[in-house]
């Protein structure tokens, strides 16, 4: 079945340093749809990025990701972390059975310190 694997656990970093969160996926579908969601404390998840085009960079709010079908990856990056980037990040894959929605990874918690 479909699955998503993310950088595990907690990522801590200093403000101003780059961020990279890994996401790899498994699916039998040849045209996967991938998403990144961000969830701040006591809030609900919010869509950050999405892509279904191979090797095309997608950007939003300083974050970017590129879907690479050859390596089944959709890593999230930011060149300079801000304190407000501290949150829980989820990578998600649209299921092969469309109606079932998305398969989410376990989430990566990011803590940015001054």
């Amino acid at each position, binding site marked *: 079945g479909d699955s998503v694997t993310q950088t595990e656990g907690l990522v801590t970093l200093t403000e101003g340093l780059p961020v990279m969160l890994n996401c790899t996926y498994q699916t039998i579908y040849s045209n996967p*749809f991938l*998403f990144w969601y961000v969830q701040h404390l006591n*809030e*609900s*998840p*919010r*869509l950050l990025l*999405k892509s279904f085009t191979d090797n095309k960079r997608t950007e939003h709010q300083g974050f970017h990701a590129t879907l690479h079908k050859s390596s089944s990856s959709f890593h999230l990056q930011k060149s300079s972390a801000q304190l407000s980037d501290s949150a829980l990040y*989820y990578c998600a894959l*649209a*299921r092969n*059975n*469309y*109606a*079932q*929605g*998305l398969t*989410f*990874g*376990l*989430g990566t918690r990011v803590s940015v310190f001054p």
Partner: protein
Amino acid sequence: AQTIHQWPVAEIKAVGSPLSLGCTIKGKSSPNLYWYWQATGGTLQQLFYSITVGQVESVVQLNLSASRPKDDQFILSTEKLLLSHSGFYLCAWSLEGGRYEQYFGPGTRLTVL
């Protein structure tokens, strides 16, 4: 513009008591609807999904049930709460077809004592 509303915002309930949580979508007809549960600090666990009125599919039940009585309404319920039901309940919608991003409601925080 589409809006998604969940009620109540928060709930404190006793073990063994019944529960009903609601979700309403406005501004979009025939959306796909989803219920998720999130333990405190934990990952998202999809519980149910529905593609049309009266039709609900279970992903993980956790002694909960769901219903879709109207096109824009999704209800999550149980007759007897367990301590393990505590957490954050999220309703989400996506465009018909399901192969698109999901948009989450504000959530309901449930504490079972």
